[in-house]
């Protein structure tokens, strides 16, 4: 097999994954989807590292990827915990609406106010869920808790 071509292919695909991850991070406003894009970038890097490892004939690339993987796992756990907390505090996951750490007079404007894109498309209709009879005992419902959980 053409080792050079193999090397190049993995580099390019890895770079493409990174690029797509960047696009996703910059474009999407949902916090979880932004995190997804970051994970995508890590995948691209993993591919690139493994390609280099193959080129040099050593296992160093794979070892590095393994550690990247470990760190990604830790990061995911913590990030998700924090995202959950954030959602409970704010009620939404929109990063474009979180700009409290700005200089006075430099508030960003909400995307909805500046976007010239026109009417927002209609969301897809909620699928009609069937009404099932309750099975078993219903759990204790705390009306205050229910109301407290933000419905956005």
């Amino acid at each position, binding site marked *: 097999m053409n080792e050079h071509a193999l090397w190049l*292919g993995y580099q390019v695909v890895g770079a493409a994954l990174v690029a797509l*991850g960047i696009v996703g991070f910059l474009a*999407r406003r949902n916090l979880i989807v932004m995190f997804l894009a970051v994970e995508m970038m890590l*995948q691209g890097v993993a591919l690139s590292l493994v390609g280099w490892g193959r080129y040099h004939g050593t296992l160093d690339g794979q*070892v590095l990827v393994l550690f990247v993987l470990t760190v990604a796992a830790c990061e995911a*756990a913590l990030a998700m915990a924090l995202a959950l907390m954030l959602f409970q505090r704010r009620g939404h996951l929109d990063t474009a609406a979180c700009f409290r750490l700005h200089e006075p007079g430099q508030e960003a404007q909400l995307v909805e106010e500046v976007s010239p894109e026109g009417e*927002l498309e209609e969301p897809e209709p909620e699928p009609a869920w069937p009404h099932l009879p309750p099975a078993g005992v219903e759990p204790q419902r705390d009306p205050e808790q229910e109301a*407290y959980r933000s419905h*956005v």
Partner: protein
Amino acid sequence: MTTWLLVGTVVLGAVALWLLLPRGRKAGRRIGAVLGAVALGMLLGSLPPLGGWFAQGLFWLLAAVTLGSAACAVSFRNPVYCAVWFGLTLFGTAGLLFFQGAQFLGAATIIIYAGAILVTLLFVLMLANPRGQAAYDRRAWEAPLAATVGVVLLGLFSTGFFSTLKAMPEETPAQAAAEKRQPPGKYPVSALGAELFSRHLVAVEVAGTLLLAALAGAVAVVAQHAQREQQEPRPAAPGQPTRPQRELTVR
């Protein structure tokens, strides 16, 4: 890769991504998909041939699956769909890793990434699920700029790689070394294991500690939050959901 091909790929890719990204309207997505496919084809086609037709075709398939599902993961409105497409991306990546001969890594990608990280992501998505689809999912922030920046970056990287390729010696270091010593063993997983626990032992232990710390940290974050909420009841009255500082249209 000639300059024009590169530029064309970049331009097409940018336009495609711009069309695909959530812009608030449905129009243009199909054209975006077609353009994206064309750009992808141009990108993959510019790579030099690998050798055998089987290897070439397999590589192209895996690459197409990976990149295509990645593009979908980025552009779908429903975040759950994004996560699912990302799962497919992970499978594609795993396949590519298997193709390279990094079997353990491929398996690890599926187990850890798809099995653990993605699932956690989905958990949180479900917990934070907006009633209807949120507006912030349906409109991107600076879509054209994001698309342009990303693809230009890709173009620059590619340019770098192609020029590095020209400067590389005829023989890869792997081939040079292969004559001197034994090639990687028939069970590369055990070789990886041996490598890890001999030369990178300290790093492995540290990584283990890091995982423990992350676990503890995640629990602590949630516990502290729950404790604070118990002590300070939220001022919102029953029936009044918590509102962000600005009005956001939900629908």
